[in-house]
């Protein structure tokens, strides 16, 4: 599993380009952040795309880019910083060339300053870097076993997260086949709290065990099978269904049960 971050200088959220979505597929954990915020993140992804478009690369932007780059230089593992700024001219171009010239790890930078961006080049380069060190994280999966049909679940439960990467109550309710009112009652919150900001900070802790339960999908065919499993009586759960116990406030215990199932834990 590899991580991808799309980052940009303006404060309005931009959509991750379709080119990246198409090329990377669902084997990647994707995030999308403003550059200023990305520069403060401690979690350094394998591939970071800094898209500057026609933005003027002033001193402030240069500092943010350098701060972000410093984390990339210092991180262990395979990392690539892909910087695009088509039609960069004058001082902007000079600053970006200086950035490349002074990079502590120039092998970790791909600078694309002319014409339409070609993200495929960055992906190809990262894959080559990963192959060179023996990591297959970003390479396509080899469908060699029945398990390969479950590859769509990697990264785990990405479909339960909002665009900003936090757990989101809406897809969780949909997957579990429950209403937001049900969830609110079970986690001891107001329905309005959940419906207003379904991926809010306050909800993350209570949604975490639900994410753990949803990992059961690794062993199941699809979402329908997961909902059926939730409602099926299980001898190891004292003859009751997982959903029965979740309703009783035992979602953490059910998440632990799922973890045991996934790891063949003797019980």
């Amino acid at each position, binding site marked *: 599993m590899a991580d991808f971050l799309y980052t940009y200088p303006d404060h309005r959220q931009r959509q991750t380009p379709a080119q990246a979505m198409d090329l990377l597929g669902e084997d990647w954990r994707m995030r999308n952040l403003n550059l200023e915020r990305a520069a403060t993140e401690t979690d350094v992804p394998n591939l970071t795309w800094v898209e500057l478009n026609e933005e003027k690369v002033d001193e402030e932007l240069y500092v943010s880019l350098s701060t972000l780059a410093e984390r990339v230089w210092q991180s262990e593992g395979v990392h690539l910083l892909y910087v695009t700024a088509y039609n960069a001219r004058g001082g902007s171009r000079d600053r970006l060339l200086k950035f490349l010239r002074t990079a502590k790890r120039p092998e970790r930078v791909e600078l694309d300053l002319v014409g339409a961006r070609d993200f495929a080049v960055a992906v190809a380069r990262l894959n080559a870097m990963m192959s060179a060190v023996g990591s297959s994280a970003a390479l396509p999966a080899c469908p060699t076993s029945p*398990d390969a049909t479950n590859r769509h679940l*990697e990264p785990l439960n990405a479909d339960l997260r909002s665009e900003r990467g936090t757990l989101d109550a809406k897809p969780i309710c949909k997957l579990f086949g429950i209403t937001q009112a049900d969830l609110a009652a079970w986690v001891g919150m107001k329905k309005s709290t959940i419906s207003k900001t379904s991926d809010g900070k306050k909800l993350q802790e209570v949604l975490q065990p639900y994410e753990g339960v949803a990992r059961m999908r690794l*062993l*199941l065919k699809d979402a329908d099978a997961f909902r059926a499993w939730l409602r099926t009586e299980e001898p190891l*759960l004292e003859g009751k269904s997982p959903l029965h116990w979740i309703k009783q406030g035992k979602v953490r215990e059910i998440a632990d049960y799922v973890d*045991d199932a996934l790891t*063949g834990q*003797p*019980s």
Partner: protein
Amino acid sequence: MTASFPALTSIEGAPVPQEVYHCRIVPTVVLKSREPMDFLYTSGKAGRYNLSSMPCIYGAEDQATAGAESERYRKGRTVSLTTYWIKVTGDLLDLGDAKVLKALQFTPEELYAPWRGLSTQGPTKTQLLGQAVAESGRFCGIRFPADAAKQRGFSGYNVVIFREGVKAPWSVVVSNDQGEEVSRWPELQTFFQF
């Protein structure tokens, strides 16, 4: 905690036989989704013989028992499986020994009682025993009869090894199905954190 089980101070530990390799059978799809390979360990999660605060590792004494454990969860699904091997060097509290059970005042039923904290609250007797064993310094873990094997009509055993109980010269070495060492207690390196 040994005060709850005074017999622990006098029961002799049973060394793990040289030829025994404990094992775990894990769906391969799970291995693809998790790195590093620290998931075999219970960390922050209760088990039959541990509270959530007690890091430990569970394994089966043979592949038949590991298979029975794995089968409990498979439910007819087709999955490919990978075996992990756990080499334990150290002394165990052997609950397969009737004299030990008697000394600890355990009934056979108590060994198979529900422990997940669903319909009951608080630590179970087996979890309290695990805590006492981990703290005793006399055993690195417990050998206990496998409920999964019993359900399938044969006699099989599992072990739980407590990190706190594994002190040199005792050791636990986990290897993958390629024979590569993936983890070791006591740690020689800090790469794997539990």
